[in-house]
């Protein structure tokens, strides 16, 4: 029957709409379901997982020593030429010339956080930090020197 089908159509249509309306009304009245994180306000409680790839940093201990030998494994592993290692020659107390890093230049603006340099590093001198607020006003600020001034290689790292 045409009329019966017509009425059925109308009612099933209205029912499907009512089901949707009930769902949105549920969320309208249940504010505990709200999932918004108010980002700049929750900085204190916002902890990123330890594996989060934010930027490359070089680890320094309390004596301002790092483990980078300047082997350029990371520089070779990097797909974007993000890392540039400038080496110098230290004169050790015995009078031997020893290769060491002068500057570990890191271009954050080129980095894609692929983690390949960290994997490539034989001495675990660099790691990924969990920072993520990288905005700066000047593009040049994104080019960083990772080894701290006056730092030197830790004893025993080859």
């Amino acid at each position, binding site marked *: 029957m045409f009329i019966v089908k017509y009425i059925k159509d*109308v009612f099933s249509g209205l029912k499907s*709409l009512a089901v*949707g*309306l009930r*769902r*949105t*009304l549920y*969320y*309208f009245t249940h*504010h505990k*379901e*709200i*999932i*918004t994180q*108010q980002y700049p306000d929750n900085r204190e409680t916002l902890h990123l997982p330890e594996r989060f790839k934010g930027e490359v940093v070089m680890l320094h201990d309390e004596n301002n020593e790092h483990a980078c030998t300047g082997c350029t494994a990371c520089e070779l592993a990097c797909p974007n030429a993000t890392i540039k290692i400038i080496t110098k020659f230290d004169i050790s107390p015995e009078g031997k010339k020893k290769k060491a890093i002068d500057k570990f230049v890191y271009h954050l603006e080129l980095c894609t956080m692929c983690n390949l340099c960290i994997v490539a590093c034989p001495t675990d001198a660099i790691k990924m930090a969990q920072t993520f607020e990288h905005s700066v006003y000047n593009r040049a600020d994104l080019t960083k020197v990772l080894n701290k001034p006056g730092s030197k290689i830790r004893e025993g790292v080859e």
Partner: protein
Amino acid sequence: MLSFSNISKSIDSGLRATFDATWTMVIEMVIAGVCVISLFAILGLVLVLMERKVSAWMQIRLGPNRVGPKGMLQSLADTVKLLVKEGMTPDGADKFLFNLAPFIAIIVAMLLMAPIAFAKDFQLWDMNIGVLYVSAVSSLMVISILMAGWASNNKYSLMGAMRSGAQIVSYELSAGLSILSIVVLTGSLNLNDIILSQANGWWIFKGHIPVMIAFIIFIIAVTAETNRAPFDLAEAESELTAGFHTEYSGMKFALFFLAEYVNVFIVCAIGATLFFGGWMPFHIGHWEGFNQVMDFIPSSVWFFGKTFFLIFLIMWFRWTFPRLRIDQLLNLEWKYLLPISMFNLLLVTAMAILGWYF
């Protein structure tokens, strides 16, 4: 007791004591104009904020919460931003019509304010053809949209305008028919008479199922008439970018925006007047004590409460449903709403003649 009608009466008598009749009239008109414009502004601010909060909570978000206490001043900040924005007119546009369109939209919305009874004995213009006036003037809205779409010289705008033309013209019919069913029951076109006829109960309760059907059709039709989702084909963000107001910016865009919200308010006010008794308090049969308590609540609170409930309904639709396609939109009107509302009108008429209502 302090009420809108007492205030208006005291202002009227005060003016009459100092000025002659003509000047009183002029000054009262100015006051009324200022009141309507400020009501516009307030409505715009409140409704935009309400929409944003309603949508946010339905979408498990917080919504605006930064500007002012609990984000109350967010829409004010938006208004300021829109005011200081440059209002651009495209090069190829018909400049006169392009700039005229938003004003027509806002003027139509203003005209519609006239017959609405905001509280007991508080009405700008108590005319005997109130219902007819409302349905006649509200269809002028389409002119501003068509004008905006045509004058923008943009294909998206033109398509949006044409869609909206087809839509508003066809949904006028079922909106009109569902309004008629109340007119049949009360036997008057005067909005004040319609409200007074609901002193012993609102029509939605008195009129059984036929009036409820009329109400459902009314709310669907006015949602379409005000171009609100799921019938927002004139804007149809994902299809036409912004439809008829694609090229508008700054204050001209804000006027369209404001007109949309004021229109929503007006159609909901009409709906509240027709089906929920306007400012009439909620009364149950012979429960005298209960009725007296209800009478104690000011009439304006009743009116705005009902209106905002209906506005919430329309917002609720918007944030739940997907948009219809243009042919489905017209199918819905011509194949479903119109036949049903015609049949329903017949039922209501029979009911009115036989007196089968409370």
